[in-house]
């Protein structure tokens, strides 16, 4: 199967402190991968490095996204090439209207692909439809990006952006945290609506209940900067029951 994303022996430090220590991961086109792992293990670091955040020092390794060297690309180039990160903590941007951002994002991608820019009418139609899908009321269009949004509203807003941009590779960093049951169902519905043989997703989560709704093809455990265990959706269930200690003990017992 065609690879969407290949990460090879990725080492990343922050302020001289190694966080990712030889991470390997391959995601094929059409697949959904879940990444689980203890707090502080490096999941968000991985997500941010994929999106192109500068604060991280990549000390070695390669990341290939659809045959391109991802690490050579600017954050905006990655986005236009179809990569999308739903942030664990979406920032509030006072004064930048949500509608502006959505339209600018859609148009940036279209312009980069030589497609005609979306006009006001087409944009409103699209955005109304997508907002209905994630059950966000239209007044949010005229509010500043994430400003004063509740935790759950911020997460749904990330999903709205994802639905507008229709990325080829979406990385969702704990988009389920802090969501009530209904919002969880809405978010999962949004994600599932994008499932497509040419599209892949990496879902970072602490909770098995999300993976009941977004059924992953693969589940990985990230601990101490590496993928230490991979399996199918059953692994998530097992982690839910037995916790990470079980993985650690198992690893300790395995001779390296």
């Amino acid at each position, binding site marked *: 199967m065609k690879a969407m994303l290949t990460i090879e022996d990725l080492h990343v430090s922050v302020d001289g402190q190694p966080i990712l220590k030889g991470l390997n991961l391959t995601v094929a086109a059409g697949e959904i991968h879940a990444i689980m792992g203890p707090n502080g293990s490096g999941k968000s670091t991985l997500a941010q490095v994929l999106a*192109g955040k500068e604060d991280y020092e990549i000390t070695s390794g390669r990341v290939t996204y659809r045959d391109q060297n991802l690490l050579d690309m600017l954050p905006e180039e990655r986005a236009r090439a179809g990569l999308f*990160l739903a942030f664990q903590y979406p920032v509030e941007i006072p*004064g930048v209207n949500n509608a*502006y951002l959505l339209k*600018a994002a859609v148009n940036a991608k279209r312009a980069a692909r030589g497609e005609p820019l979306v006009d006001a009418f087409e944009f409103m139609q699209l955005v109304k439809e997508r907002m209905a899908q994630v059950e966000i009321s239209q007044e949010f269009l005229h509010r500043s990006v994430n400003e004063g949004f509740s935790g759950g509203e911020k997460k749904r807003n990330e999903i709205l952006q994802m639905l507008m941009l229709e990325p080829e590779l979406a990385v969702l960093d704990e988009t389920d945290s802090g969501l009530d049951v209904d919002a969880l169902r809405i978010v999962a519905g949004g994600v599932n609506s994008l499932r497509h043989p040419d599209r892949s997703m990496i879902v970072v989560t602490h909770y098995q209940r999300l993976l009941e709704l977004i059924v992953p093809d693969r589940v990985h455990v990230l601990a101490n900067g590496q993928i230490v265990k991979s399996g199918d959706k059953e692994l998530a269930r097992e982690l839910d029951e037995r916790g990470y200690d079980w993985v650690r003990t198992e690893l300790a017992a395995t001779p390296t």
Partner: protein
Amino acid sequence: MAFNGLYKDLPGSSAVDAQRKDAFERFMRAGLPTRRDEDWRYTEISALGEIDFRHAVAPPATAKQAAHHDPLPIRAGSKLTFVNGRYAPESSTINQSHRMLVHPLETNWTKLSDGFPGHERVFAHPLGLVNTAFTQLGAVISIPKNSHVDTPILLEFLQLSDDTLAVQPRLIIELAANSSAEVIVQHAGQSSATNWTNMVTEIHQSAGSKLTFIHVQEQGLAATHTCLTTAALKRDAHFSGGYFDLGGKLARNDIEIALDEHGASAELFGAFLPIQSQHADNHIKIDHRAPNTTSNEYFRGIAGPKSRGVFNGKVIVHKHAQKISAQQRSDNLLLDKTAEIDTKPELEIYADDVKCSHGATVGELDEQHLFYLQSRGINELAARALLTFAFANSSLDFIKDEALRTALSEKIAKRLPQHEKWERLT
């Protein structure tokens, strides 16, 4: 002074003439302020004294005027247009219902038979002295008791001449008890001449009156713009003042508000954008002279290469002014290493039961915001431009009139570097 010859054959009443004479003599003794004056430390205007100014010249043909400036697309009830230092009745419209309220000075000096009502402060202020001595255009706006003027009154001052003009408009706004009005003053000009506009607005608000006053300054890049607003508020009166300094080589804004009686309140907000080797200085003084008075200031400054901004906000709480609240925010953005903004809150408090807060920042764009926009495909330059615009734009949140807010927002956008980069996408 090179321009003292302008002090002759000026219009007025005998009381005005007496005030002019006094102001002129005091101005001749004191001269223009220099940087040795504490209030003028950052802003040098004394060189204006060397320039051989004229009061006014004939306006260009009307058609040309329209082509020369960017009007505010608002549904003004009345519009007074002044071109090159003269009232232009042919370009002005006074709404039928405003006939008794809006009086261009040119034909109404009789309204000042007792002289300029003035505040001590106008006569104590160097800019006020100059204006009082030389003014020969402007308007008196008087709103009677219990009247609510529901369409804005717009005054536009256009400098469309290449002559070196010193234009000294005087605006007097009087609101009788429980009246309300909105006044917008726009200064525009494409001229590359070194003209100087020195405006004085005196505001007298009786009990329970409400005034919205918006100042939009977008003069040419060789112009000097100075203006002094003084306002005195009686019981429960409310003043809302927005100040947007976008143009001019040098802009200096002095705003002095006296909250004279119980319950009076003022909010002052605005943005100053010295971007293209410009200089913008705001000096605000709010006197809380009575209990239960409230003030709120919210200003945003953005400075570009070789440009400088100044924000000086002084709040004085007098001895018997208990239970007052005074808030001040001054947030500033530097776009370049050669940009500078000096912001200084000053509090003098002589009462003991007060709520005062102030915050001032000078900084750069937030990297997290930038990354978020980039991660949505917006390139760095466009993202920076959009965030810069957003920063300035939040000063418009106080404006309720949507058409005005949109118009100002567009004017702000156009002043900022690289705005076309994000506008293209939205």
